[in-house]
């Protein structure tokens, strides 16, 4: 443990900051009853407790007994995240940690389903009205095939998944479930409108990229458009598109944009092969999408980004850091998502050489890099959003990366690459 982290932990012990973050209730959301709301709050509180009250003990337990037992049995010290996993899985402390973490995830979705299911008829009416307010296009093809990497498992244990399997493929219920559920999942770290990632990347573009002002923007894997809307807000003259493989998410996204008074286009498309013309966009972005694709899809997605970008255009993908940027124990904790949270590509994606993939896709080699887009969470406190106190927001913005949390400390890791300007 480095000195800075030790002092931060000591500080947190003396003055624990309570997570009082509250989602802004826009008209497209399902409205919870008081008891439904209390169950949802409990799921968020339980996640917070697992993170702050249980997870920090994993390191000491590993060093004090799990690593020693592994050494006795294997005749060598644990070398990588796979060894650490073997050492920890039989340990009762880890078992409680992983079991309760999983239960928290399940309770979270179940508590939101209560609201969505009960409120659905009224929600569908509100959604239709809000969708009508959005002058952007809504394109849902009749014969769309949802890729296996999204359809095979219900990612992060959301019942029905992004795209649904039965009647839920047609409606907006799974979009409403995701909108509220992922706020609790992220424990409010991504802001009252769940848009910190998009907002942070927009800020990064405005402050760091020398006046780059995109005219056409594509957000890949947009789900309900949490990250998409800040692009329209901060680049109001731009034509903004959000695409996703899941129709329920896209329909809900269109209505949600309408509820925010924004004209944004949404389409059910696969990022591996979109319907857009060559060179149509000057900015292509994604937010926590790549780790939910596959080893085969990722090179195709990078190639598609290159194809739809105009010469000089930028590709920016915001996801969690690659494994080579962190120590094996942190890797092990993050990799629990692969095994326990229906995230089959979570670990493998972090082992890929994304810089090399971008080169192969044709991006200008000397422009390809990882960088950090600082979190916009302090802006929410400045706006006095409900529950976003200065202290609570500061605790999120100022902390170090903590594996297992949805949002990394301080900033989002972004992969940036530029398409060569026309000769």
């Amino acid at each position, binding site marked *: 443990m480095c000195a800075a982290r030790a002092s931060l932990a000591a500080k947190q012990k003396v003055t624990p900051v309570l997570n009082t973050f509250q989602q802004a209730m826009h008209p497209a959301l399902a409205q919870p009853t008081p008891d439904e709301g209390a169950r949802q709050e409990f799921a968020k509180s339980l996640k917070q407790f697992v993170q702050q009250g249980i997870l920090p003990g994993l390191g000491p337990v590993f060093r004090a007994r799990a690593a020693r037992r592994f050494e006795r049995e294997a005749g060598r010290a644990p070398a990588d995240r796979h060894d650490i996993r073997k050492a920890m899985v039989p340990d009762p402390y880890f078992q409680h940690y992983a079991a309760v973490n999983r*239960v928290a995830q399940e*309770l979270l979705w179940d508590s939101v*389903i209560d609201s969505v299911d009960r409120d659905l008829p009224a929600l569908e009416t509100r959604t239709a009205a809000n969708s009508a307010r959005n002058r952007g296009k809504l394109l849902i093809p009749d014969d769309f095939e949802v890729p296996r990497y999204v359809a*095979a498992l219900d990612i992060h244990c959301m019942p029905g998944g992004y795209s649904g399997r039965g009647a839920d493929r047609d409606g907006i219920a799974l979009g409403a479930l995701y909108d509220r559920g992922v706020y609790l999942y992220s424990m409010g770290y991504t802001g009252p409108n769940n848009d910190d990632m998009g907002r942070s990347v927009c800020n990064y573009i405005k402050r760091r990229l020398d006046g780059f002002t995109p005219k056409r923007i594509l957000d890949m894997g947009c789900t309900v458009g949490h990250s998409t809307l800040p692009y329209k807000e901060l680049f109001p003259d731009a034509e903004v598109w959000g695409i996703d493989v899941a129709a329920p998410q896209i329909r809900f996204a269109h209505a949600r944009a309408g509820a925010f008074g924004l004209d944004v286009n949404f389409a059910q498309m696969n990022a591996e092969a979109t319907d857009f013309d060559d060179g149509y966009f000057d900015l292509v972005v994604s937010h926590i999408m790549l780790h939910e694709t596959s080893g085969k899809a990722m090179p195709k997605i990078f190639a598609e980004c290159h194809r739809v970008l105009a010469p000089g255009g930028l590709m920016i993908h915001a996801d969690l850091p690659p494994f080579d940027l962190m120590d094996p124990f942190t890797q092990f904790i993050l990799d629990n998502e692969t*095994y326990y949270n229906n995230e089959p590509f979570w670990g493998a994606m972090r082992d890929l050489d994304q810089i090399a993939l971008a080169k192969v896709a044709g991006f200008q080699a000397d422009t390809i890099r990882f960088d950090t887009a600082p979190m916009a969470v302090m802006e929410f406190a400045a706006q006095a959003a409900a529950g976003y106190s200065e202290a609570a927001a500061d605790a999120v913005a100022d902390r170090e990366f903590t594996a297992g949390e949805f949002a990394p400390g301080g900033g989002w890791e972004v992969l940036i690459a530029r398409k060569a300007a026309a000769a």
Partner: protein
Amino acid sequence: MSEGMTRSAQGKRPHFYETPALDQMMSMIMVLAGEVSVLADHIDSIERVAAANGLDLRAGIASLALDQVALEEREARRQALLGRLFYLMRKEAAEAEAAETAEGYAAVIDEIAVG
């Protein structure tokens, strides 16, 4: 619940304990903890709504002096709660007292079958 949204996420659920029943026990304990939390929130809401309408329940509760009847009712309720919570230990002690065993139970099944 045949109607409504699915409550089951597709994908085999992992187990975390050597004894599978413990996974279910832990989920039940967490659900119950959640319901306790919901009730606590609800009581808090009652107090705040009453206060907003001029009735300071919180101060009234703080200054409430319990008379003998109330003391007895509360202690009886707490003991009854603990009795329910530890019913399996009560059963275990009773079995020891009556020398009841699994073998004895099996013997009764056999005996009744032919008796």
